[in-house]
């Protein structure tokens, strides 16, 4: 009997906790989420503000909304509209993503499933390239592409991707492959599959989350890449958006931030859309290999 009251009081707080705790958690999550998203919201809001209003307030809702930023930003100060730069960006990114995926999967397959002499050393070298600063390679590669006659074309920007130059992606896929049971592949081999058939029909469907993660990462990194297009592309007509956005920013002239923000908003849309479409796979892919099983 004596336990009854204490039990009753114990149940009360626990029941309250059952809704209080998620509510609190969600409140914190929403709060922090908004805080993280605020710069993004501010950018979108800033795109609709006249230039003089941008520094005046930290609120993101424009007091006198205007489309000037979009109109002038799209027209740009160059001979081309912003559309040219968007198209250029995709002419670079699409082959780059496709080549990266194909080459990274092939190389990862080799490392994960075949035994070749010196494999450990080669793998160590591959990982070492991840740590190599990109700027070290800039001038030697520039000279090489000059000899190929590829300067001021898109080739130097995506052809290297055909050789699995991003060690990180290979590593990501290898880790994912290690988590896959070899039984399925063995069964396929018994059924008469060749290596490339095993890869294509058995492994690739299972690797899909990792492949999508690689594609998304490469897409976003290439969108943001500034120094490579800057160095390899000299004609304005070939610029991607990462260069075009900086065209308006100078040391002596006040920058029309509303135009820069408006065009950044437009430039962000493809990444956002792609991310939301592929979100499910992306989440699965980035945590791949985190837990072996």
């Amino acid at each position: 009997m004596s336990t009854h009251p204490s039990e009753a009081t114990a149940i009360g707080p626990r029941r309250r906790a059952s809704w209080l705790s998620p509510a609190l958690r969600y409140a914190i999550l929403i709060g922090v989420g908004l805080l993280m998203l605020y710069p993004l919201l501010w950018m979108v809001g800033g795109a609709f503000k006249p230039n003089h209003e941008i520094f005046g307030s930290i609120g993101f809702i424009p007091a006198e909304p205007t489309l000037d930023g979009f109109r002038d930003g799209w027209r740009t100060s160059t001979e081309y509209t912003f559309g040219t730069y968007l198209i250029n960006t995709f002419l670079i990114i699409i082959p780059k993503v496709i080549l990266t995926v194909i080459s990274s999967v092939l190389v990862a397959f080799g490392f994960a499933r075949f035994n070749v002499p010196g494999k450990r050393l080669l793998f160590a070298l591959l990982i070492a390239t991840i740590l190599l600063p990109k700027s070290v390679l800039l001038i030697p590669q520039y000279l090489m592409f000059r000899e190929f006659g590829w300067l001021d074309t898109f080739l130097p920007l995506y052809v290297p991707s055909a050789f699995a130059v991003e060690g990180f992606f290979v590593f990501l896929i290898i880790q994912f492959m290690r988590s896959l049971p070899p039984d399925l592949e063995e069964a396929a081999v018994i059924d008469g599959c060749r290596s490339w058939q095993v890869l294509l029909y058995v492994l690739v469907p299972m690797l899909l989350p990792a492949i999508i993660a690689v594609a998304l990462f490469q897409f976003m990194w290439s969108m943001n890449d500034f120094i490579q297009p800057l160095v390899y592309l000299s004609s304005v007509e070939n610029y991607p958006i990462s260069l075009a956005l900086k065209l308006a920013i100078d040391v002596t002239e006040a920058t029309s931030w509303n135009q820069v923000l408006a065009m950044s908003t437009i430039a962000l849309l493809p990444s956002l859309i792609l991310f939301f479409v592929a979100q499910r796979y992306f989440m699965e892919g980035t945590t791949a290999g985190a837990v072996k099983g």
Partner: protein
Amino acid sequence: MIAVLPRLFAAVVAAVLLTGSVHAETVTLRMSWWGGNEVHRALLDSVREFEQRNPDIRVRTEYTGWTGHLERLTTQIAGGTAPDLMQINWNWLALFSGDGHGFKDLHELRDVVDLDSFDADALAMGTVHGRLNALPTSMAARLFYFNASTFARAGLAVPRDWDELLAAGPVFRERLGPDHFPIDLHLQDVVALTRSWLVQRTGRPLIDDGARRLTVSAEQIADMLRFYQQLVDAHVTPDARTRASYGNVAPHEMRPWIDGRFAGSYQWISAIGKFIETLAPGQTVTLAPYPMHADALDAGLLYRPAMMFAVNARSAHPRESARLLDFLLNDPFAAQRLGLLRGEPVSTRAIATLREAGELQGLSVEGAAQVAALPHAVHESAWFEHARVRDAFIDVFELYAYGRIDADAAGQRLHDDVNRILGRIIR
């Protein structure tokens, strides 16, 4: 049908040959620059006009914003693929043309480029070892600009000398409040301002290229730092902590500058325009007289070309490039199209065009006039602007500004650091 083919073939061959022969006469030049929206439009218009007047020359324009332009040009020069005509920064001459052979000697092309419209100072600053490597578009110096509206609220006229500047601080604090300051100086401005203050006393540039050393002693550098402390103590400029509390924002985009609480800037003539553009409406900025030490022989200005144009030493078409260069700097069309976007032009012919059009007015013109009136024979070495030297100054000034090091130790450290860096980079 079959009989037609050979004739068609002949026509095609003739057409190819014809266009081929036209192409052989056309020269294609590459030209690069950095700038903002207005500069891009003005230069593009000028280049198109140049093409119209010279149908045998096509110009491919390769322009970017400021960010990354040096990296890009460095790669191109290293790879031997630099444009025929390029805009360069004055201190890049030291990087790319240490012996004067990095760029074309424009004296060789003086029948195409009118050099007479440039004064001796301007030509001297583009000359390396007797070879004229580059021509300036405009000259720049740092001058004192004040927000006249804020000074009026404080009941003060803008300061005319160092003492008045020091005296303005307490008045600002009492009449306007502790968050109002007569001038805003970030660390790079502090280095430039205290350098000017010191050069007025020594009458020598800070760096001696030939000796690859500083000309001043550790004690004199400590004096620079103490003078900065004096400015902070007198409430003339916000201390480093106060400044940092407004965030790492470009000075002209800082809230207190926009609303007039920071009422001054020690700024380049070519850059003050953007400070005025961001100002909240209803305020005016004026150029103040340059403060001079009582027995100073030189103002200690950081006087240098704002930007220059140079012809690639390996260009296949140096004469055509030089014609474009001459057009951009001297021709009335280009002069009027560019106007004062990059400050008052150096070319006397461009100035004459602007004067006739009645466009020769404004702060940049006043600035150029002030510089001309001041004694400015002491020219600072280009190495003073080298990234490593600049960073060394800023690092130690920062340590001092945050009270981590005293003036004497800072002076000694800066003296040793900069001398070591100079010994390594000047070759």
